[in-house]
């Protein structure tokens, strides 16, 4: 196995961790909309927070080995698809981080309500359906998958 293959493996590992975490996070976000009991919602949102390390480690591997691969693979750092991928990747991370922060009060409220009477409240429902947080969450995942499209098609790279 050559240097290029090893770098590609580490880059792919980052991609699987990052996008896999995005998928798991979407599953938990979607599920949190479908249930009403605070104890169930608290559990789902706690599980969603467990995938954050996969985002961090995956994102780091993706970025470091992706940048390295550009030169080893014979591409140019000024190629449009490389710049677009980097910008979208950064936007995806920012949207995910801000969306995650906005979802935090919903988890805290669910955890507070669970031991009390475990009954759904309008406030909890409203926080779970915060349109800004949902747009940021789903948007972050979508941007991640757009980066995957760029990685495969590499528009403007030739070949």
């Amino acid at each position, binding site marked *: *196995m050559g240097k290029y*293959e090893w770098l*590609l493996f580490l880059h*792919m590992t980052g991609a699987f961790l990052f996008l*896999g975490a995005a*998928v798991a996070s979407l599953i938990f976000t979607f599920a949190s909309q479908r249930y009403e009991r605070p104890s169930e919602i608290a559990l789902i949102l706690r599980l969603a927070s467990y*995938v954050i390390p996969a985002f961090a480690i995956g994102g780091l591997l993706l970025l470091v080995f992706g940048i390295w691969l550009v030169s080893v693979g014979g591409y140019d750092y000024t190629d449009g698809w490389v710049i677009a991928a980097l910008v979208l990747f950064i936007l995806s991370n920012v949207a995910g981080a801000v969306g995650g922060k906005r979802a935090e009060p919903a988890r805290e409220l669910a955890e507070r309500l669970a031991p009390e009477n475990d009954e759904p409240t309008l406030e909890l429902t409203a926080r779970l359906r915060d349109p800004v947080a949902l747009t940021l969450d789903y948007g972050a995942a979508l941007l991640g*998958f757009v980066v995957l499209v760029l990685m495969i098609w590499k528009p403007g790279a*030739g070949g």
Partner: protein
Amino acid sequence: MIALLRPDSWDLPLFAHVLGAVVLFGGVGAVFLLTVAGIRMPGQSIFTGKLAFRTLMFVVWPSYIVMRVGAQWIYSKEDLQPDMPTWIKLGILVGDGGAVVLLGLTVLGWLALARRPSFARYFGGLAGLYLVGLLLAWWAMSAKPGV
């Protein structure tokens, strides 16, 4: 210039294959986390078991089909017969073996929900093993041992 050697006509099947694989990985990861949570919090095990089983049926199975169809599609374009390289053999082993694993997960998940809650441990264990299998597959697909 290694990366430029791939013909454009391979892009769509490769995308289907990779998209299916990452969704499959994330879906199995979610199933694993839900099952572990259910084992650690027995009071929530029915809830997490149902959610894990739904994730298996509505995320994991469909993404497996997309991944496997994409794999077969791109394989048909690569003209690798008769000397199949090791990385393809490993990919086929994990890919086709995945159908057996998912059937096993479906049966165990159903049994854990309907008849034997203790089967949740086997369900979670098998999901964890499959995550390792998927890691082996993407190592084979990207590092291409034997080439």
